[in-house]
């Protein structure tokens, strides 16, 4: 007996698109989400969707959410986690545990893991950035929240800042922390936020301290060049080493490596460009399902260029940031591929009726 239903674990951008895709192909979908609302981290953190139009992620994800919630083939389980798992391609069995403790046994033919990421905790960084010490040291996520509310201020005073900087690669590309990978999105997000700050607070000077600016595709001209040419954001090659407090202001200290010159600059707000780490859900689900994970806990997808979503276990696929840092477009593209591959794997197994 072969089961053609697909279990999607995680209801963020990748999970929503995977569920919609598999259901549109005619499979029944069980979508499990541990939060009380579908939409994932971009929704709960209030990002802007990182596409050409920069619409708020909540607005974009509402479309994806409605597509899933109104689909006759998708059953959604909110505030639910997978608590046990067994079986093989065509006949997996999972126990779903709801917030009230109710257990539900479900069976499915294939699984798509879309359990996403967390933001790097800047308390873990090895520099003296003092995220938990200085009120005016914030993260990209904190800045995004203020920018979405169109009110960018110094947290300590509530006043508009005169001087703001971003420090790139916090928690990424760092052997000491153990996160050697690039988180991919922080250069783009920081530059977009820098432009937005310049628009909201026109007399505020904005700096970005970077090691390499990694601006792919349209990010180069639509985000990076715009920030430089139109918004006059100052890009300085060299990473800030430490932040100290002098009086009521922060002073950042680093090196302008192109000029071979030390710099000490007073700042009103310092934004730490924190990268991505696997979510607790990604680490736990990967382990429970027995799929290969890298040393950080990200789920390792197939190394074939023609299959970006297969895991080490037949019938289990991965989509989105559970497989490593990604922007929203890539998460959604990957989810479409995972839905197609999962449904195809099940259909191929079904007896062909003549």
């Amino acid at each position: 007996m072969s089961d053609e239903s697909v279990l999607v674990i995680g209801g963020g951008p990748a999970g929503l698109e995977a569920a919609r895709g598999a259901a549109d192909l005619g499979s029944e979908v069980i979508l499990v989400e541990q939060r009380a609302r579908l939409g994932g981290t971009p929704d709960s953190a209030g990002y802007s969707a990182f596409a050409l139009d920069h619409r708020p992620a909540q607005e974009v994800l509402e479309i994806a959410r409605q597509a899933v919630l109104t689909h006759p083939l998708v059953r959604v389980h909110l505030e639910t986690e997978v608590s046990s798992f067994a079986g093989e391609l065509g006949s997996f069995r999972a126990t779903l545990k709801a917030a009230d403790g109710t257990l539900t046994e479900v069976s499915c033919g294939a699984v798509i893991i879309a359990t996403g990421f967390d933001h790097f905790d800047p308390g873990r960084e090895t520099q003296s950035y003092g995220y938990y010490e200085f009120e005016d040291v914030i993260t990209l996520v904190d800045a995004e929240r203020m920018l979405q509310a169109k009110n960018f201020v110094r947290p300590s005073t509530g006043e508009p800042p005169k001087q703001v900087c971003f420090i790139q690669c916090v928690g990424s590309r760092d052997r000491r922390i153990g996160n050697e990978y690039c988180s991919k999105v922080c250069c783009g997000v920081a530059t977009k936020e820098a432009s937005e700050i310049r628009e909201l607070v026109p007399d505020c000077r904005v700096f970005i301290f970077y090691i390499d600016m990694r601006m792919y595709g349209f990010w180069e001209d639509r985000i990076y060049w715009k920030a430089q040419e139109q918004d006059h954001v100052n890009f300085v090659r060299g990473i800030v080493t430490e932040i100290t407090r002098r009086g009521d202001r922060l002073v950042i200290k680093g090196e302008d490596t192109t000029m071979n010159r030390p710099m000490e600059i007073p700042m009103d707000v310092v934004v730490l460009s924190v990268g991505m780490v696997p979510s607790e859900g990604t680490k736990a689900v990967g382990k429970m399902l027995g799929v290969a994970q890298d040393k950080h806990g990200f789920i390792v997808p197939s190394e074939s260029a023609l299959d970006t979503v297969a895991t080490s276990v037949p019938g289990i696929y991965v989509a989105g940031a559970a497989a490593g840092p990604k922007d929203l477009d890539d998460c959604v593209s990957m989810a479409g591929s995972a839905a197609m591959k999962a449904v195809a794997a099940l259909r191929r197994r079904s007896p062909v009726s003549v």
Partner: protein
Amino acid sequence: MTEIEKERIHEEEHLVFEGMDISGHWNRMFEQRVVWEHDVSALDRVTEIPGAESLAYCYQCGKCTPACPVDHVGDYSPRKIYRRTQLGADLVSSPDLWLCTTCGNCLRVCPKEVNLLKIMPAVREQAVAAGNVPPELQKAFENTFQYGNPMGEPARKRADWVADAGAPVTVLSRDPRPVDVLFFVECYWAYHPRGRDAARAFARTMEILGIDWGILGSEEKCSCDSQRAAGERGLFEMVAEQNIATLKRYQFTRLVTPDPHAYNSFRNQYPKLGGVYDVTHYTQFLAPLMAKLPWVRELPYRVTFHDPCYLGRHNGEYDAPREMIRQIPGLEFVEMFRCKENGYCCGGGGGGMWLDSFSGNHTKERLSERRVREAVETGAEMLVVCCPYEVSRFEDAVKSTGNEGKLLVRDVIELVDEALH
């Protein structure tokens, strides 16, 4: 500042590159073509040296530069060393090789783990082998080889300070017997007049605490950790083996030393040569015993404290000396803005102790002078230290920065002693 071999700049009518003349009008932006020629193998020559591989990891982020104490007084940091070497400067013959004090602050902030603590000793070893060592450092090496201490003092005078310690001190070479604590005095407490002051204060404190302890006396030789960091691995191994053989002849339960460099070598280097000891720094040994001391006076001083690099960053101990200062009655304590993990270096480590003239020719001021100005800035009247290199370094720096009368330098044990008498 630092003379590096700059790239040679040529101007050519015709540019011939790998046998091809590429000077066609289509490729000519200016009448005279400017060509930068540098030796790209210089970096390979460094990173091929075992221990120096990680210099190749640098991705030029620049985080080390503000952390490097030498850059504050010159033009220097691991990033700059990497870039100069990449551009063809020969590190083995460059002054850059000797300015690093192996303080370890760059490694603390380096995302790629470029490890100067390994790179510097390894590359310096090549320079030592080639006989290319600043003369004053060479003298310290020779003294250590000949006399067992870098100052060239006779071994028989090593325990002379004991005579007027004001408390009995067991010298095991004269009076061999099992002791609880074997106190490894090290060279600067054994010979330097201000070091001897601290050694005597320590002896009086141990007497009051009733500790069963002794010293090796004339048989003790330099632990040689700084000679190792300065590139003399062969000398280090030879003297370390002599010390290990000497220590083997005496019975003791633990080793205590006032020198963070000696502490580092007993903890991290001697075990590799078979010398395994239960070793503590004297501040770690004394901090838990402070509550037992019968204080007789309050010391009405405002003090600040300098973290030794080899106690703090190298071995993670920041609390023990602060705990001692906290328990000495009457002291008011204030931190310098650079302290603990980010503590500034006194300039004495990694051979810097024996390179003062050399470093002076390549930097604006001594690290110890800069540190003294930071201490004065806090409003403290006393700079408290717990490394034998530091009393003399900082007292010299107090004079040379014109702060005489404004700042005193004291070993923490001298304050303990003062409050006990």
